[in-house]
């Protein structure tokens, strides 16, 4: 195995074979993903601790988050996960057009997600629901009197909401950067069924971002 006859361009010198390189990259990615999971775990722990302490407050505050927008974003992210999975499928069968189309779709779904998030945030901020010291709900809209929500530990709920969705949103942004990059590479024909590691790795990352949201949505918006 020490000397392979053909030496593909993507093979780095310290690997023996493409397989070894692919396996290594993939395992590295999975390890990276669990660091992401543990990063978010801190927020999930904070959420649980405060929810156990102040269940009524958390129940009450969820009402202020619009489950329609949250649900829409859930569907959008799920769809984007699907297009990524499709993209990888097309990469594996050497269908460049299918790959590029799906990568672009993924990118667009990510945009939609952030736009929706933007509207959600600004509606909150408008009513004094901000991260940190300035927290002071006020004003009335859609028949909801925000001032009545200015109760003890309401701030904790929204701090958790902002930090969780904020870090998640940041990951979406990073994901968009990644997809822009691999879309361009895919257009240039860098990927084939023999080598599509970057697509695979970005895909794994993106699915994880999706999974985090799968948990955030019910915890924050629904229950």
């Amino acid at each position, binding site marked *: 195995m020490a000397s392979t006859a053909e030496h593909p361009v993507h093979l780095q010198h310290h690997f023996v074979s493409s397989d070894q390189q692919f396996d290594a990259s993939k395992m590295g990615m999975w*390890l990276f993903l669990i660091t992401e999971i543990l990063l978010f775990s801190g927020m999930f722990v904070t959420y649980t601790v405060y929810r156990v*302490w102040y269940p009524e407050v958390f129940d009450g505050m969820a009402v202020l988050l619009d489950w329609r927008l949250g649900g829409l974003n859930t569907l959008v992210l799920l769809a984007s*996960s699907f297009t990524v*999975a499709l993209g990888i499928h097309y990469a594996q069968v050497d269908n460049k057009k299918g790959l590029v189309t799906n990568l672009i779709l993924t990118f667009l779904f990510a945009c939609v997600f952030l736009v929706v998030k933007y509207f959600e945030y600004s509606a909150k901020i408008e009513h004094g629901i901000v991260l940190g010291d300035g927290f002071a709900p006020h004003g009335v809209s859609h028949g909801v009197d925000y001032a009545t929500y200015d109760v003890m530990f309401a701030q904790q709920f929204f701090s958790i909401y902002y930090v969780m969705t904020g870090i998640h949103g940041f990951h979406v942004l990073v994901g968009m950067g990644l997809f822009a990059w691999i879309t361009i590479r895919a257009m240039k024909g860098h990927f084939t069924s023999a080598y599509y590691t970057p697509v695979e790795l970005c895909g794994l990352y993106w699915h994880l971002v999706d999974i985090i949201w799968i948990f955030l949505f019910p915890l924050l918006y629904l229950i």
Partner: protein
Amino acid sequence: MSHAEHHITPIKTLVQVIVALFALTILTVATSRLDLGAFDVLVALAIALTKGALVVSVFMALKYDNKVNAVVFGIGALFVIVFLAFTLFDTAFRGDLSNTTEGTIMEQKAAEEALQQREPDPAALQFNRSNE
């Protein structure tokens, strides 16, 4: 460990999964509208876990992947649970020492005061430390 062929997930499977995911999303919204009391949280979590499992096993293809990656993922999940559980051992049971309630603290105080009443005047005891 080399496997020349990478697993290719058929489009049909992918479609089935996304349909299931959409359905579960609708289900979780629907159940949350009902008032299930304490089960609300459990149902929502169960659905979220199912969705997560679908994404991990099919979209991320962990089901077909090298075992080691599944172990990595499992360990990550395990330690999230450890973090959560051991923190809750504290936060959910704060103040579980029976001698730290307000009543017992007052009792303790009273007992201490009573003891102090009985304590002789230090000056009267006159420990002689001048020869140090």
